Every structure is written in C-alpha cells, then in structure tokens.
C-alpha cells in the first residue's frame, strides 16, 4: 500500500513524487503535513487541470496493456483466498523493491511457500463472459521465467504448472522451456485446473485437475499463481472515440496486415500492445516502425525542434593524483542477492586511489546517474568505476554521466560483477563476493592509469543498402526512401518478392499476391530506390556511416557506397525427408498446400480426408526451435479447404497448437467446423505408409490418441506437412561479410533480444524479417518499418562520433620496422617522413582500435589508447592481491 505522496516506481521518468487521489487534503481538506515538510516548497495544492493545445503532424498511440483482473470471475478465488495471487503480484514478490524486499513470502504466515502452482491461460483462450477468447501470447514464457526465479530463490521449492498448449513460439523460447522443465522439482501438467478450496488454518489452496492416465486428482499447494493474460485497458474506448480510430472486436486497435502500425485514420499510428497482445521485442519494433512512418510524414521538419545538448567544460585533471569513486550497483536483486554489496563498498574504500564509494539500487536509473554526476563534482572525483553490468549496454550512459560532471568520458571503467559474477555464481555467495571485490580491485587499478581521450566526428553517407528484396527488404527500403534517402536493394533472384511469392493469403485475410505486386510497383516507381537483380555480394568494406559494398549483378561488378546496411535476406522452407515427402505426389508442405489451394488443384480440393502433421523438421535435436508460423498456416489452410469443401475430413496432428494472439479465434473456428485436432508426443510420432484401400491409393497415417488410449488409423488422400522454417543458405556468408553474429539456431543474432531487436551489435547494420527468426507477414512488416526507423536515426545525422580509443605512435621509440603496418588490415598505418627519418603514423579515422599493432611492435612504440600496456598490466597485477602473496609466503614457511 502506497502513501498518498509517493514516487511512481524507482525507475520512473521523471523521477519525482506525486500525490494521488487518496490524499486526505484533496478529499477532505485535512492533513497538509507534506507541505510543511517539503523544504523546496514544491507542493502546490492549488494546481488545477490545464487544457493545452498542441499542434502536431502525427500521433502515435502507445497506450499499453493491462493485466486481466481475475476478481471478475468467482472461480479464480482471487481476493477470496489469500494465497491465490496473480502473476503480476508474484512478480512483485520476486522483486527486490517488492513487499518483502525480494523474498517470496506468503501474506498469511510470512513463510516461504514450498509448493507453488501456476495456472495458465487465466482470462485467455476462453469464450465465457468476462474472459478473452484470444491467446495473450506472453504467459507461457513469463511463467517459465517465474519458475526459474523461484528455483533460484529457493532451490528446494516444488513448482507445478497446469497448462494447455505450451506456446514457446518466440526466439529461443523452446530452449527456455526445456531449461525450465529440466529443473528438479518442476512439473508441467497438461490439464485444466480448478481451485477447489482453502484449507482452514494453513490457508493452503487445493487444486483439482485431470490427466489422461490418472484421472481426476486433487493436490494441495502453499501458493497458487494465476498466469493472467493481457487485457485492453479501459481507456482504449475513450481513446478510440477521441482520436476517431476504430477498434476490433477484442477492443484493440483495428489494423490491417499490410501495415499494422497504421490506424484507419491517416497520421495516427499505433505501437506496442495497442495492436494486440505483444511481447517486448515486438513492442520495440512496432515503436520504431511507428517512428519511421511518422518520419515519412514529417521528414521535412526533422530536427526543427531539437536543441543541442551542452555539456560543462571538461576539467583538466591530468596533474591531479587519481581520486577514484566506486559505485556498486545492486541491479535490483540481480547482483545484491548473491554479492554482498555493502561489504564490496567497504572493500573498495580500502583500495589505493579510491576516495569515495557508494552502493546504488540501480546505477542506471536516472536519479542514480544524476547522483554519480553530483558526487563526482562534490567529491572532486577524477576517475569513476561503476561495478555493475557489462559495458556492452550501459557504458555510453555512464560515459555521459562523467561528461555531465565535467570529466573526460574515458575516465570511466566498468567492473562487470553481474554477467561475470552474480549471474554465474548464484550458489556460491561468499566466493562471489570475493570475486566481485577482485574485479573491482582490478578495475580500480586500471582506472588509475586511464587518460583523457578526444573523440572525433565522421561524415555519414546518407544512402542505405538493403540486402534482400522480399516483403521485409522492400517495406524497409520504401520507408527509408520516403524519408528522402537513396536506397539500394540487392536481390539474389531475378525478381523481387522472396518467400511471399509462394504465399497467397494470411490468416487475417490479406491477399498477399496483390499486396506484393503493389509493393513491387511502388519500389520500381520510387526514384530513390535502385534495385540490383541476380546479385551476389563480393565484399563489404568500411564502417558505420561509410560502407563500400561490392556486388556482382547481372554479370557486372558494382560498387555501392552507403552509410547503413539492412540485412533482410529471409529464410527458407525445410525440405522434409520424413512422411513420404518427395516420394508420394500427394504429400505437400503447408506452403505448397496453400499454393495448390490457390491454383484450384482438384485432388486437394476434392480430397475426402486430409491430414496435416505439425512440427516437421524442427522442435527436434537438429533444429531446437519452433518455426512459429506453421500452426497458423495449418489452421488457415484448413479453413480455406472447409470453405470450399465443407465435407472434407481434416485432421491436424500437433504437439502444441501455437495459434497465439488473435489467431486463437481461427483455431477455435476450425475446431467448430469440425477440423479434428489430435495431439502427439515427439517420442511417439505419427507414421505414414502408402497403401491401397479397395481401389483407392491412400496415405495411411497412424497416430496414438491419448484421450481414447489407442492407435488411430487415418486414411488420407492428401497429407500436408508443417515443414520447418530454416535459415537461408547464405546467412552464414552474409554474416561473415557484414561482421555480424548468428544465434545458435543459425538465424541472425540481434544486438539485444528484447531491447534491440532490429539492430546488430555491429554498428550501422540492421536486420528485419525472417532472417531474424520465422514470423508471420504482419510481423515482418512491423519489423521492416522498425528497421527503417532505426536506419533513419543514423542516416538523418550528418556525422557520427568515432571512438577515441585508437592507436598512436611514440615517434621516439619507433624503429621503422613496419610490423604494425603489416598487422593493420584497415590500412590505417603508414610511414611518414619526420626529421628523425621514416616513422609509422596512424590515421585515427581509419583505425578501429583492435590493438593488433600494439601486440606486434617490438619496441612498444605503438600503443592502443585506453587499452595501454600500463593500464592493462596494472589490471593484471591487481588480480593478485597482497593477501594472496602473504598466503603464499606462509605456505612456503610452512614447508620449511
């Protein structure tokens, strides 16, 4: 329970207190204590609502989502039984800022629950009043996360998950599910579950469920978590009326597959969950996409309202002794639940050069960063060590923090005590604390040797290169071109279109071919877009803002200079080796089946019985991922067939139906139209043989039926296989050329799976479409706009800043041996004539700071700034403590 005056949450922006409706003064005119206490005179009870008129050119609606409230249905017993909580409540229990500061405790007896149950699909996938018919899409995986966290908190706890289908359709989710299920004491039970009673006294909760082999059972739990789905916020209705946009039947924005960011009213866009239930990466790319489409409208006004950020002048500290400040981050509980943070702060204060040390809950939060800036000024710090996470994500933020304090940004060092320590040593708390202190000590040693460096600006070539001319590549290219930038599309085939050439409709009813033709026409008609057909990429040189790509297209070599690169090379369909595919002409893949339906193939349309087998070629040892789109494809094809031939018997053999989001409605519709769904287990796969039944050739599919407990034989005229989506053959080669990395399943690896889903860790290179991971057409379009949005943040700038960490030659020590010149692939080093003869010289614009030259120079004349021998050797020396040396001496003495 919050007080009336409070901070919304610890990472809120702006981080200031506000007063809510429960304020006694606002309600009854009493109290008023806060006003007397506030020394800044910041509380003003006379404020009244103001009406502001703002003229804008476009509107983006990102009104978010709200969790389903289970108290609307009595059966969930929420608020009735105290140990029934929602997943949102449970999230708070797991949080270090939660009611018990990160301890999972029962409200009733403040004891740790040993037996915890999760009930899936609460409020989702049900047509009963008050529930939602759609699948919320996120609950399966967030539950798995909660289970893993619960096991981390209390390794002995027993976790039971009552579920329907496990919908691990997201990137790497299948592995995540396997990881969760592999924990001892974790049980996934496929059953509906109902909450029967609360045990008086213990307040434990009893759940009734049923399994096919054991029948109806009851089990007692210390705590029950309701995995609640996602609801449209009540405000959507009001928003839709005010902005004049339509909602769909579920109360979310009504959108078209061809552009899910656009509402029915031009100039008004939706991003995030307003499109429908979404997870984080999709929210991010729809947000970037809405940004890009806004850019298409308002590009002519870009930069008109922006102001230049002004930093204080840099203080010259070169003559000062190192005065190092150390900030140790709790990272919520990520670090502090394992590493003893206060002890690490104490320890840091004993280190040479450290004049100040402090702990912070989230060093990256706005207020904490401000605190670092303020303390650096107040305490006269000239070096800062942040003991927190990997510099990969937050180094830029903390460098900025130093600049705000008037310090050169290269006076920062980050000690990674999260990825390198707390996350990997959660079971060994004492040793982890020791290691965190070692890491901090090494970091401090390096920090004492850091020198101020200057960065410089590089010009940005305003052209983009898009590799791949499918829906993703074309959509992205068009959005970039509509914002005034030239775009080169490089397509390996003769024609544009990619995989979509083989798709005819989407589940939402988009006529893919008509859409594609239109898209291709727009691409060719856009004067800023240049398409190279039958092209292969020979070489990619350069860097962020200044790439040169050499391609061979229709027999000639072409060189393209560009500032940004987008990789949209798509994916391929797996060619099944199983189930008589390629041997029997009536066995198709789902994609082929879709084509045959569109063509009007008589055998297919007049089939008496048609069987579909899901998960062919993936969710297995070879390809340990879910191809995401196949369940939707199966249902789409089934509905199409039923429409044309209502008497056709259709069976879909599946492992988990993964018709997430609004696709659930189509799944239900198929079921209502008597499409039979039969579940199989991977260890007991269906078998197919071609046999003659009477005069007819049939495909006999044998599959176990767990409900009936026997083998079923289905004689099919046509068999359709959900062939996996697999990474394009050229993915590896393209990754090598553009210096980007691949995920374990062979798809492109994005910079951050949640927060940076359309960019690579390699600067200036972006991605979209199925090369990232299998996805449906509307999702691909969303991501393509998203990539365009990110490309524009680069191309709209005139310059980019290059790192100050480049090599430099001390002329006096250079013996002109040329070792560094041969070591440098960037050709950044050359000999120049000096009064002392020929000496090596580094062109800082070309130098990328890999430091190979440094390790080759026989006289250490060339040094990589920021990673100097001095700094690194200090760090290496600090790895060995005085205590360590003493212990060693003791050991030697003992021997004597």
């Amino acid at each position, binding site marked *: 329970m919050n007080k009336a005056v409070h901070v919304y949450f610890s990472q809120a922006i702006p981080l200031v207190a506000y007063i809510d409706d429960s304020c006694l003064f606002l309600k009854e005119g009493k109290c008023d204590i806060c006003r007397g206490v506030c020394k800044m005179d910041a509380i003003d009870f006379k404020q009244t609502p103001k009406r502001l008129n703002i003229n804008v050119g476009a509107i983006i609606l990102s009104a978010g989502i709200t969790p389903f409230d289970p108290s609307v249905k009595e059966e969930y017993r929420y608020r009735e039984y105290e140990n029934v909580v929602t997943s949102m409540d449970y999230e708070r229990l797991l949080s270090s800022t939660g009611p018990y500061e990160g301890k999972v405790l029962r409200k009733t007896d403040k004891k740790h629950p040993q037996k915890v149950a999760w009930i899936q699909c609460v409020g989702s996938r049900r047509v009963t009043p008050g529930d939602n018919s759609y699948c919320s899409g996120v609950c399966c995986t967030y539950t798995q996360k909660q289970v893993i966290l619960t096991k981390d908190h209390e390794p002995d706890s027993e976790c039971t998950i009552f579920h329907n289908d496990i919908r691990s359709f997201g990137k790497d989710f299948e592995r995540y599910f396997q990881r969760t299920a592999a924990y001892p004491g974790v049980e996934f039970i496929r059953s509906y579950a109902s909450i029967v009673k609360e045990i008086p006294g213990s307040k434990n909760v009893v759940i009734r469920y049923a399994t096919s082999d054991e029948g109806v059972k009851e089990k007692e739990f210390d705590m029950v978590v309701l995995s609640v789905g996602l609801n449209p916020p009540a405000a959507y209705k009001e928003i839709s009326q005010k902005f004049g946009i339509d909602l769909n039947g579920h109360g979310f924005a009504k959108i078209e597959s061809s552009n899910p960011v656009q509402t029915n009213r031009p100039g008004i866009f939706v991003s995030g969950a307003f499109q429908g239930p979404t997870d984080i990466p999709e929210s991010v790319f729809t947000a970037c996409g809405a940004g890009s489409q806004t850019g298409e409208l308002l590009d002519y006004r870009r930069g008109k309202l922006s102001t230049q950020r002004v930093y204080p002048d840099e203080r010259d500290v070169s003559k000062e002794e190192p005065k190092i400040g150390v900030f140790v981050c709790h990272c919520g509980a990520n670090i502090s639940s394992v590493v003893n943070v206060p002890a690490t702060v104490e320890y840091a204060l004993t280190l040479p050069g450290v004049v100040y040390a402090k702990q912070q809950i989230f060093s990256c939060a706005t207020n904490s960063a401000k605190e670092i800036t303020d303390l650096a000024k107040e305490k006269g710090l000239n070096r800062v060590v942040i003991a927190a996470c990997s510099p990969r994500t937050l180094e830029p933020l903390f460098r900025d923090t130093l600049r705000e304090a008037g310090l050169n940004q290269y006076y920062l060092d980050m000690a990674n005590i999260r990825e390198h320590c707390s996350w*990997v040593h959660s079971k060994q708390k004492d040793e982890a604390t020791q290691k965190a202190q070692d890491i901090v000590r090494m970091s401090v040693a390096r920090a004492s040797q850091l020198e101020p460096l200057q960065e410089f600006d590089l010009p940005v070539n305003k052209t983009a290169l898009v590799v791949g001319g499918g829906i993703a590549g074309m959509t992205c290219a068009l959005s970039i071109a509509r914002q005034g930038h030239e775009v080169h599309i490089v397509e390996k085939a003769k024609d544009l279109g990619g995989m979509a050439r083989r798709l005819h409709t989407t589940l939402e009813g988009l006529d893919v071919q008509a859409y594609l033709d239109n898209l291709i026409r727009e691409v060719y008609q856009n004067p800023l877009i240049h398409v190279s057909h039958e092209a292969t990429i020979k070489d990619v*040189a350069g860097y962020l803002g200044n790439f040169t790509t050499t391609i061979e297209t229709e027999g000639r070599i072409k060189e393209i200079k560009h500032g940004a690169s987008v990789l949209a090379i798509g994916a391929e369909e797996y060619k099944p080796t199983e189930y008589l595919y390629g041997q029997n002409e009536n066995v198709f893949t789902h994609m082929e089946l879709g084509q045959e339906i569109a063509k009007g193939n008589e055998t297919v349309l007049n089939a008496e019985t048609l069987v579909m087998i899901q998960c062919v070629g993936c969710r297995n040892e070879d390809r340990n991922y879910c191809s995401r789109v196949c369940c939707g494809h199966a249902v789409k094809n089934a509905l199409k067939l039923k429409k044309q031939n209502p008497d056709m018997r259709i069976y879909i053999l599946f492992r988990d139906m993964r018709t997430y989001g609004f696709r659930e409605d189509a799944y239900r519709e198929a079921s209502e139209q008597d499409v039979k769904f039969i579940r199989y287990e991977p260890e007991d796969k269906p078998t197919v043989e071609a046999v003659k039944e009477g005069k007819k050739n049939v495909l006999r599919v044998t599959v176990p039926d767990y409900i009936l407990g026997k083998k079923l034989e289905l004689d099919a005229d046509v068999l359709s296989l959900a062939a996996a989506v697999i990474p394009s053959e050229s993915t590896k080669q393209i*990754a*090598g050329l553009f*210096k980007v*990395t*691949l*995920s*374990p399943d062979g798809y492109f*690896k994005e910079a951050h799976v949640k927060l940076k889903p359309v960019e690579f*860790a*390699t600067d200036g290179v972006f991605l979209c479409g199925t090369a990232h991971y299998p996805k449906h057409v509307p999702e691909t379009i969303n991501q393509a706009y998203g990539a365009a949005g990110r490309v524009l943040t680069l191309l709209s700038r005139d310059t980019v800043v290059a790192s100050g*960490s480049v090599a430099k030659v001390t002329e006096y020590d250079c013996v002109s*041996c040329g*070792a560094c010149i*041969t*070591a*440098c*692939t*960037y050709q950044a080093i050359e000999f120049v004539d000096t009064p002392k003869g020929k000496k090596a010289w580094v062109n800082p614009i070309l130098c*990328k*700071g*890999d*430091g*190979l030259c*440094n*390790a*080759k*120079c*026989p*006289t250490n004349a060339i040094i*990589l700034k920021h*990673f100097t*021998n001095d700094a*690194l*050797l200090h760090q*290496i*020396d600090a*790895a*060995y403590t005085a205590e*360590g*040396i003493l212990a*060693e001496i003791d*050991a*030697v003495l003992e021997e004597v």
Partner: protein
Amino acid sequence: MCSGRVDIEFILRAFANGQDGVFIGGCKLDECNYVTHGNYDALSNTYLTKRILKHLGINPDRLRIEFMSGADGQLLAEKTDEFTHQIRGLGALGSSEGLKKETVRFNLEAARKLIPYMRLVERERFRVPVKSKKAYKEFFESPDTHALFDKIFSEQLAISRIMLLLKKNPLPTGTISEQLGLKASDVSRHMITSSRHGMVRYDTDSKCYTLVQA
C-alpha cells in the same frame, strides 16, 4: 580491443605474478568482430607462449585459449569450469612442475625480456600463410616448427637468464653454470658472444663476468 591485443607480455606477467592458469577468450575463428581476424594472432601467440612455458619448465596446459561468440554463454561457463578443474589438478604454479617459486619467477622474467626479440622472430619465421585452425595447429605442432623455435629460443633464453643473474652481481663461469643448470661450455660460448656484443665484460682479476651498464 581484440583478443589479438593480448600481449605475450600480459600472459607472462600474469604467471610471474603467481597466477596458476591463464585463459584467453576470443571471438569464434572466421567470425571476426573486426575485419582483421586478429583472433588468429591470439592463437599463434598462445602457441608460441605455450612453447616458451615448456622451455621454462612450466606445464603449457596452464595456458588455454577458447573461441566463442556472444551467444555462447553456456560454452564459456563449461570451458571455464573445465579449465578451473584442470588447473586445480595441476596445483599451484611450479608445484606439479617441481619448480621453486623463485625459479619460476626468475625464468619468466628472463623470458619476458625476450619479448621484443620474439616479436621480430614471430614476424619473420612464425607466420602461417593460411588462416585456418587446422593450418595453425599443423604448423605450430609440427616437429620442424618446434625445432626451429627451440633453436632460436633456447640460446636467447640462456643468455637472458645469465644476464638476469649477472644483474645481481658479477659471477665466474662455474657459478653461472651451476646456478642455472647450464653446461659450462655453453655458458662460456654465450659469454664470448655477449662480450663481443659489448653486453658483458670479463674481469681478469676476479675471473668474473660483469654486466656492462648501458
């Protein structure tokens, strides 16, 4: 900074500080984060340093390099565990090698002084034309390469050790050979070459060699 920036000096320094093992992590071979494929340099530095360690009587298994991508967290954990167990098995630096701490440190210091020389030699003699794990392995593990390395390095190391010893005080040939476990004839030969290069001076009265201060 690339794994190729990991200086041989860093590795020797860590061992000289008393670290029992050194682990180098680099990007996957042929999947360079830069365009330089500097991880191959890290690989050749590792091979060379292992050979140096062997010469110093230190188990080369105490140095290890592994290549992995940012997506290989699991692999990093596995390899780290594996290496930790291996090093625990070998015990403290010098213990399983039967070397005293001082000897280890002395030898490492002598080797460290050879790094500039090593860099020149590496460039002239130890470059592998083909960048592949196989080619590197074949080259660096071939008897020819070992013989070449030993020929070049053992002489230089012996001289470096003698110089380091003479730094403390002038000594006669006999004592040098005794303290460093070198043949007296070899010591004499090295001393003659070194006098010619003006690095040492023979004092006829005390019959000792003295370091010439630069």
